[in-house]
């Protein structure tokens, strides 16, 4: 891994900046005064108990959820209610969901070429070449003409990753990508994600896979009750947690 770490360079360029961001569901304060900056090439793992707002946070980054206060600037584009900005951000940011959300009526290849063709306006042949390239990268080129329903969960999630990559995103968001998977399938998805990290992709990943965090993350963020409680380098975070809340959480998930 040491060799891999050296490959994963972090630049000074800011990819995402969130400042003083607040969000409510009705009167429920889900995200409270979030401040964070992600530099290009950073791999960030967000963890925390369920209901702590971590999914909501990354869904705000491509505006699947609307924030009510504060600023989010993604890749130099501020997320406001302007549709053009939203479209721009969404085509720059890829997202992988917990339940894959592949389109069941399209083949794997069509799933991957759909957005490049209709959003990026890339010629079909070219889009298919790109799709096959990324399907090869996630190691399932042979499944290209099957339908999502014919694939295993792990394969589906790798297709979902490939589908996002086909848009050539500069940032990837992962929303608990492995929590809906059987244990033996988790590894194949994590391997894909590690490979992606080694290529220098900016990643924000909500996950409970602490092994993954230790292997590739250069920062771990712990959230609770809608707030960022602690963030640190993985080594420091796991070996020497500062906050009591973090200690309790870590003891619960690493305890057995």
């Amino acid at each position: 891994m040491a060799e891999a770490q050296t490959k994963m360079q972090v630049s000074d360029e800011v990819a995402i900046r969130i400042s003083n961001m607040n969000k409510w569901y009705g009167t429920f304060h889900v995200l409270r005064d979030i401040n964070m900056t992600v530099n290009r090439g950073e791999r960030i793992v967000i963890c925390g108990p369920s209901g702590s707002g971590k999914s909501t946070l990354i869904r705000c980054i491509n505006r699947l959820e609307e924030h009510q206060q504060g600023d989010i600037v993604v890749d130099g584009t501020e997320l406001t209610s302007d549709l053009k900005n939203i479209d721009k951000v969404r085509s720059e940011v890829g997202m992988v969901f917990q339940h894959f959300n592949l389109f069941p009526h399209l083949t794997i290849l069509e799933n991957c070429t759909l957005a490049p063709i209709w959003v990026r306006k890339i010629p079909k042949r070219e889009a298919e070449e790109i799709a096959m390239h990324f399907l090869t990268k996630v190691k399932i080129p042979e499944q290209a003409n099957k339908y999502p329903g014919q694939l295993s969960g792990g394969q589906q999630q790798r297709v979902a990753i490939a589908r996002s990559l086909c848009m050539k995103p500069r940032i990837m968001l992962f929303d608990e990508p492995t929590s809906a998977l059987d244990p033996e399938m988790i590894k194949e998805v994590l391997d894909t994600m590690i490979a992606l990290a080694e290529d220098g992709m900016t990643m924000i990943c909500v996950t409970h896979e602490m092994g993954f965090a230790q292997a590739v993350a250069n920062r771990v963020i712990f959230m609770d009750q809608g707030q960022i409680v602690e963030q640190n380098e993985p080594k420091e975070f796991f070996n020497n947690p500062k906050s009591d809340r973090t200690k309790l959480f870590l003891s619960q998930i690493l305890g057995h």
Partner: protein
Amino acid sequence: MAMASEAPKDGFRLSMLIYDTRFRSFTIQVIVLILVLLGIAWLVDNTIQNLAAKDKDINFGFLWNRAGYDIEQQLIPYTNDSTHGRAAIIGLLNTLVVAFWGCIFATILGVFAGVLRLSKNWLVGRLMTVYVEAFRNVPLLLWIIVVFVVTSETAPQPKDFKVTAEMIQTGTEPAAQKVLFNTIAITNRGWNIPGPLFERPLGTLHLGSVPVNLSLLAVLVVVIASFLSNRAVLRHAKRVQEDTGFRPTTWWKSLLILIVPVVALLVALGFHLDVPAFPADANGVSKGFNFQGGILVQHSFTALLIALSLYTGAFIAEAVRGGVMAISRGQTEAAYALGLRPGRTMNLIILPQALRVIIPPLISQYLNLTKNTSLGIAVSYLDLRGTLGGITLNQTGRELECMLLMMLIYLTISLIISSLMNLFNSAVKLKER
């Protein structure tokens, strides 16, 4: 820090009307509103111009004018001297009465056919499939017309039922016989069916111009009261079961409560069925030209009722079958594995779940049946459409008012039925996350 384009926070630009999510929906709605209003204004303007050209106005005063036409089937008194408004009410009642009986018969038929279609018996299942498919795939209008034509054109004249002196001597039967244990006579004029008669009636009460038969009202009250007391008995049994673990036998109590009071009241009132018959002399020779006693039901009513019940019954059968099949086999197996007996399994596990699936389509079939009563036009049944939307419309020439009123009444009926369905749906909705 490469903050390329910090978008300006303030300042309103025109393009924001389209590209800003806060204004976009507002813009679209305003445009739609303008278009809709323009469209309505156009229609209203046209209507006003057209009415002016024909020298007409919009006026519902005609409802209080004399109707001047007869309606054969009337649930409340009506003569051709009554008003158009009253004719419309007669029509509405005729619509409702055919819809009411149609729903009852269609439900019986549909449940029966649906359950039989699920039976393991191959022959019965096939027969019911033929029934369901035949009625679902052929227009309702055809069934109405066929039933009407066949019953009215093939039925004998009333005189064919007469017993003459010669017949008694030679021992021959009259040309036509009454059906169903000699109680119903189908003639070319209509169906003579037995009517309820009370020897010691309670009289009638006049509510405005609507007479109410107190005897029938008393029977209705007693029936409702017995149902309520039966429910009390069942509730009591449930409480006992919850307290002690044993359920007291209730079936004979229920039977007693449901039957005895009604029978007692009927006996007290001197209830009997008035079977239609020819008046006869001591030898049994018939006199007169037509049946006496009982109720003469028009062919238009029976044809509409039979066709609607058969047609809707086929759809209800499908709903019932779908509902029962929607309950997975696992439910039955789980109940058996817990030691429930088949009867209890049906009552406690299968039916409550199946009903949840069956009732919504069932009610929408009731809605369809009610709307389909308007096909009575094919057999000149004077329902709401036949009176208000038919003769009244033609006589007064007030198309706009009559159609508007008729649509509103139909709409009200439909909305009442569908709000009942919504109530039911929200009551039985499975509690899920």
